[in-house]
């Protein structure tokens, strides 16, 4: 290879980490909105809920493509091991996303089968979320590897722990979705979103507690990392902050704050994400290959980095603009105005 040996792994870890986090936040809230959608049968509410995400869901889902391809590009060995290992959750996610994605247009154009497409939308959103949660759980538990290949069976990823993370993520996305709806709606619909948001909040608290308690038990290395001296000193702000943000989130769900619930949910996600990253660092195929072992060639990293550093800020700019165009409350009578 002609390129001098430069270490692009940290910057690619950061880019991929941010890309996946953007995905979790953005598609997280619109999948969450989809899950909550199933809890109201009122057509006016459903129209409003759908309209609040119709112009942006496609862009949100694009971050999933970037996450998948970014993993393929930056850490191809991880891509080649993890994706076959979670064959069925990925299948479930893709099929669910397909149903849910076409439901935006089909529901509107196919009035005789609207009920069917309503179910496609809400159940699709829930199943896609659950599948992603399974992938997360399987990732935390690690993969059986032989050489450069996944060596386990296609059903190995389904464990009580991964099913729990699947359920947890549904509460998490639900909370994000409720936050989004509180931000974008008003009146009774907003009250309804607050009510559901509070239920999701309890689910999220339970989820964080169980996963935080189980992960160190399942993997002793993780326990050592968090509880050994002096790590416990440096890392203790994360659980403490999580607790403080959780209290703030609960208060925002109960007072008049319109921005608070969404921002609080966002910060909670960030903290959980950091917590998982700290637990697994520096593994990208837990507990077999590190980021450096799974990395693409420096030449590949460099070639893609040139474009990514130039394109990502532009993407963020025009994506921000498209959100700004559809800013404000979504209302039934005059649409987006």
């Amino acid at each position: 290879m002609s390129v001098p040996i430069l270490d692009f792994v940290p910057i690619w870890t950061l880019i991929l980490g941010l890309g996946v986090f953007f995905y979790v936040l953005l598609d997280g809230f619109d999948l969450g909105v989809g899950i909550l959608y199933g809890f109201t049968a009122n057509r006016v509410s459903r129209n409003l809920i759908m309209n609040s995400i119709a112009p942006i869901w496609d862009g949100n889902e694009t971050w999933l493509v970037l996450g998948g391809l970014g993993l393929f590009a930056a850490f191809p060995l991880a891509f080649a091991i993890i994706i076959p290992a979670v064959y069925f959750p990925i299948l479930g996610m893709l099929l669910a996303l397909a149903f849910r994605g076409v439901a935006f247009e089909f529901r509107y154009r196919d009035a005789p089968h609207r009920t069917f497409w309503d179910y496609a939308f809400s159940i699709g959103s829930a199943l896609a979320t659950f599948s992603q949660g399974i992938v997360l759980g399987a990732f935390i538990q690690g993969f059986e590897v032989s050489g450069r290949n996944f060596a386990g069976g296609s059903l190995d990823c389904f464990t009580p722990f991964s099913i729990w993370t699947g359920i947890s993520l549904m509460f998490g996305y639900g909370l994000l979705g409720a936050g989004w709806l509180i931000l974008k709606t008003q009146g009774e619909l907003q009250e309804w979103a607050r009510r559901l948001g509070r239920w999701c909040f309890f689910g999220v608290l339970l989820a964080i507690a169980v996963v935080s308690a189980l992960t160190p038990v399942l993997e002793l290395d993780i326990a050592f990392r968090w509880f050994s001296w002096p790590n416990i000193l440096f890392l203790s702000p994360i659980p403490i902050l999580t607790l403080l943000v959780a209290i703030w989130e609960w208060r925002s769900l109960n007072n008049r704050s319109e921005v608070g619930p969404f921002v609080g949910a966002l910060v909670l996600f960030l903290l959980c994400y950091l917590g998982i990253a700290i637990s697994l660092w520096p593994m990208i195929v837990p507990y077999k290959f590190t980021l450096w072992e799974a990395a693409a060639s420096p030449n590949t990293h460099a070639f893609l980095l040139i474009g990514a550093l130039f394109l990502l800020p532009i993407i963020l700019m025009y994506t921000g603009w498209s959100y700004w165009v559809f800013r404000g409350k979504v209302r039934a009578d005059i649409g987006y105005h």
Partner: protein
Amino acid sequence: MTLDPLLLSRLQFAWVIAWHILLPAFTIGLASYIALLEALNFATGRDVYFRLSSFWTRIFAISFGMGVVSGLVMPFQFGANWSRFSDATANVLSPLLTYEALMAFFLEAAFLGVLLFGRRLVPAWAHLVAALMVAVGTLLSAFWILAANSWMQTPAGYEVIDGRFFPQDWLKIIFSPSFPYRLLHTVVAFYITTSFVVLGVAAFYLRRGRFIEEARNMLSMTLWLLTVLVPLQIFIGDRHGLNTFQYQPAKIAAIEARWDTLSGAPLTLFAIPDEAKESNRYAVDVPYLGSLILTHDVHGNVRGLREWPPEERPPVAIPFFAFRVMVGIGLLMLALIVVSWWMRAGRRLYDSVWFLRCCEAAMPLGFIAVLAGWTTTEVGRQPWTVYGVMRTADSVSPSLTGQDVLISLAGYGIVYLVIFPVGVALMARLVRIGPLGIGLQPEPIESGRPDLPVRALPTAEPEALP
């Protein structure tokens, strides 16, 4: 019989890509057409362009949504079913695919929202820019995905270390030998496909005496466009064929069902290729024409399949027939275009019933040709995923059992058979409703839809929210 994960994975890939390719085949051309209509409306202020743009944008919204969800499936296929291929080729191929996402997908997605829903929210010029950006995005997407595909067909600019591919020269990787031909041939094919759909819709209206102004505009514009594109495509196709003849001679031998190496080879118009006996049955040959087409010389040398050991030959019958379907459709298209010149000269373009009937019947031709062409090139490059270097059989994920893949194939089978027919039916319904909008209201059509869903949907008896 045991279930073979390799065969099933290939079937699954063929299934998901065949459905998916129909959507870009339509939306790439349609995005450019909408951008053109928006620009014409912006420049001339004529209402007919506005109505047409809004009409086609409604149809675009459905097909693009289907394209997104079926396209999302594709990168995950590489990882899930072809993990050894992914591991081996990632250093070379992954940046091409990632650039597609970075340059094209985000651009399309962000500006599509504004194109569909934003007409009232942004100035007219910004809406035009959104339409242009969506069109540019679809073309960039074609650029990168075909660069990746072309590299797999005619790999260049790489070295192999320990069974994995490493990049040496990015320009050679992106502009691999078959790429310029493949890109032009495919994009022109997609433009032609869209044109025939627009042409068919126009003819449908003219025959029924509906939306005359819009229909005449569409019919005339697409026939001028096709007048340029169809002959151009035949020329590009010939150049692409010569390129394939140079870099993938075994594929050409399969397309031509040529078993023996010959100088002055005939063109086999029809035959039943028999792979076991390595010969053709019921062959209808035209002497010397094969050499003339492939080498542009009647005595040119054409290599036959026997030059390759059987395990390095592609299947013969599938590329042979698929290629003939593609070329046959190309000639049919050319015939229709030639007739249209004559009709235009005689001022009978808009009211000759039989001509309009032919235009309507031609609506699916582009799609069939695209699928046939795709089948030709993809089956013809077997048994390789990276031509001449990595075999398809060595590319599949080792952890998968036949049962695993059977389940996923059934899943994709069922879901696509629900989504695609419904999508086509809904687009057909929009065509029947026509460019004046749902319920034929003459009021201006906002934001690419007759109205926002919340107003257009009947709200039942006043219920309490929610």
